[in-house]
């Protein structure tokens, strides 16, 4: 049946070729599109996990605790050792967030001071993206502070000025004076109005010696969204090592909104695929239907010889499937090597890289396509082949042999 289908679809080469090329083009475009979206998704993944870590460790029920003293992980040095022993090779960063009253010479404002200890590369990238003037406090700097630009305006403070912080601490109220070393334009307005950055030791000195609000674990082996499910067993392993006092969360659990943003890309591409394949499907319908009409006599003879309706229907479906499968195979053969080439790294041309970077994506991206995305593309092509042929196949299958053999195209 497949041989017959193959020969039949090439009776009208131009028409069949047109339909096969349309399917092939859509498959090629889909593979490329999946690859580019994969690159964007992985770019987002890298940016997100570089910023917040792949896995975070908090005190249990940290979301509900209102008292600062109960919200921090005390004995952080011991916890860090246990983390490093459990997951060797992990880059561990820590942060201590301290609610404080921050005062300039004339004005004061409630602020959230973030004592940050980050890997050098992450720190550098953060500075490149968000630092407006000056610098970030050095990792061991006990006196420097970088203010959000809106907060600095409120306090009427600029680089070189002194600000004063008063904060509830684990050992009573803490107070300290800092020199403004830089201004940071935070992406979130609320963060820009309240946020300030210290070194981790400075924040600990102010409010909670030896404590942190959270650990952020950067796992260098996880650079692609496709690998992300591998985080779950590591989380379980770490949770068992740290005990019930703390909770270990993947970045998806800590920041569900970011995770949803990353996941929203796939439904979007499915919508586009549906539109592309429907258009290609119309060409296939036209090709198969015309082919059935032209061969009405022939189907009449085949039915007269004893072919059942189902057999004739399957013959037409097979032609459509062979046509679409041929186009899909060509599309894959042309598309996959291109995606493989782009998986080694590519930049957008015509200055688009700068636009992409402005949206927080890396300038160099790596195309990526998952096996299930190839399967989805093929399923679309096969689905189009089946759906496009259903009606013509039904027409052919229901022909009455005597009338069909009298038909003149």
């Amino acid at each position, binding site marked *: 049946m497949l041989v017959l289908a193959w*020969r039949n679809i090439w009776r009208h080469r131009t028409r069949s070729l047109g339909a096969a090329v349309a399917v092939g083009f859509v498959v090629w475009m889909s593979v490329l599109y999946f690859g580019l979206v994969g690159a964007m998704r992985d770019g987002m993944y890298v940016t997100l996990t570089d910023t917040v870590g792949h896995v975070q460790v908090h005190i249990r029920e940290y979301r509900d605790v209102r008292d600062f003293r109960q919200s921090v992980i005390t004995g952080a040095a011991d916890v860090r050792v246990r983390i490093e022993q459990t997951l060797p090779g992990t880059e561990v960063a820590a942060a201590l967030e301290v609610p404080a009253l921050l005062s300039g010479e004339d004005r004061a404002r409630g602020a959230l001071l973030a004592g940050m200890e980050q890997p050098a590369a992450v720190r550098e990238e953060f500075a490149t993206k968000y630092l407006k003037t000056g610098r970030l406090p050095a990792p061991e700097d006990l006196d420097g502070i970088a203010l959000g630009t809106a907060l600095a305006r409120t306090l009427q403070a600029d680089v070189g000025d002194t600000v004063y912080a008063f904060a509830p601490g684990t050992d009573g109220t803490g107070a300290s004076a800092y020199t403004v070393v830089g201004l940071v334009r935070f992406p979130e307005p609320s963060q820009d109005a309240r946020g300030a950055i210290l070194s981790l030791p400075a924040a600990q000195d102010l409010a909670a010696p030896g404590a942190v609000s959270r650990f952020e674990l950067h796992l260098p082996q996880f650079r692609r969204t496709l690998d992300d499910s591998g985080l779950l067993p590591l989380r379980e392993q770490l949770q068992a090592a740290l005990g019930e006092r703390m909770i270990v969360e993947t970045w998806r659990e800590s920041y569900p909104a970011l995770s949803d943003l990353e996941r929203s890309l796939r439904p979007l591409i499915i919508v586009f695929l549906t539109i592309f394949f429907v258009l290609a499907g119309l060409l296939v319908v036209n090709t198969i239907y015309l082919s059935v009409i032209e061969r009405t006599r022939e189907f009449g003879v085949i039915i*007269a*010889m*004893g*072919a059942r309706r189902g057999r004739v229907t399957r013959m037409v479906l097979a032609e459509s499937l062979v046509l679409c499968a041929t186009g899909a195979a060509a599309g894959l053969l042309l598309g996959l090597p291109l995606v493989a080439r782009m998986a080694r790294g590519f930049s957008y041309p015509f200055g688009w890289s700068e636009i992409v970077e402005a949206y927080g994506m890396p300038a160099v991206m790596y195309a990526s396509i998952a096996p299930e995305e190839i399967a989805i593309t093929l399923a679309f092509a096969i689905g189009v082949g089946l759906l496009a042929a259903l009606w013509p196949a039904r027409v052919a299958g229901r022909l009455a*042999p*005597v009338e069909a053999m009298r038909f003149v195209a």
Partner: protein
Amino acid sequence: MDALVRVRGLTKIYRLDGQQTVALQDVDLDIGAGEFTAIAGPSGSGKSTLLHLIGGLDHPTAGEVWLEDQRIDRLDHNQLAELRLRSFGFVFQAFNLIPVLSALENAAFVLELRGVPRAEREQTARAALSDLGIGELWRRRPNQLSGGQQQRVAVARAHAAAPRMILADEPTANLDGATGIALIDEMRHLNQEHGVTFVVATHDPRLLERVRRIVYLEDGRIVRDEGRAS
């Protein structure tokens, strides 16, 4: 001899746009196994309609068609398809070969529909082509064959499946004199040497001269049934 096909009171009326056309009217006919019967008559006399009803290609308006002890005029589409596949071979005026298949594949097509394994059906089809004297043309597609050769392939397609009866509708109408006579001789040879039962609708005098029995139809009725030695 018990009849292979029995037709009783067979009537076929076509209705189109409120108009009724009586194609067959109250026809009774018996055809025995191994016969070579011609259905003769002018155009529009009901020859093809009778052939179609005997072969289960259409349902009668009234009457009965029996294939041995099986009444076939009441069978549904799928049952009729199965009956045609197992019991009848068809040869048409316009050859009606499948253009994308070779002579061998065309001759083996009915066997393929029956699910016969490839090697077996090709062997059978080759033998059928040889019986029709075109064994060496097995590779050729229909457009590479003459009209006579195409019609031989069509007869080979019917013969290869070893049906209980071959129904041929004006098989020589599109063939020139010598080719037509040669094809008739091939069919008679199959009838005499292989015992294949033929019912042929025709008004070709060359064919009518060479058959044992001629049933004459006029206006949908049998007007004469002549048994004749070949």
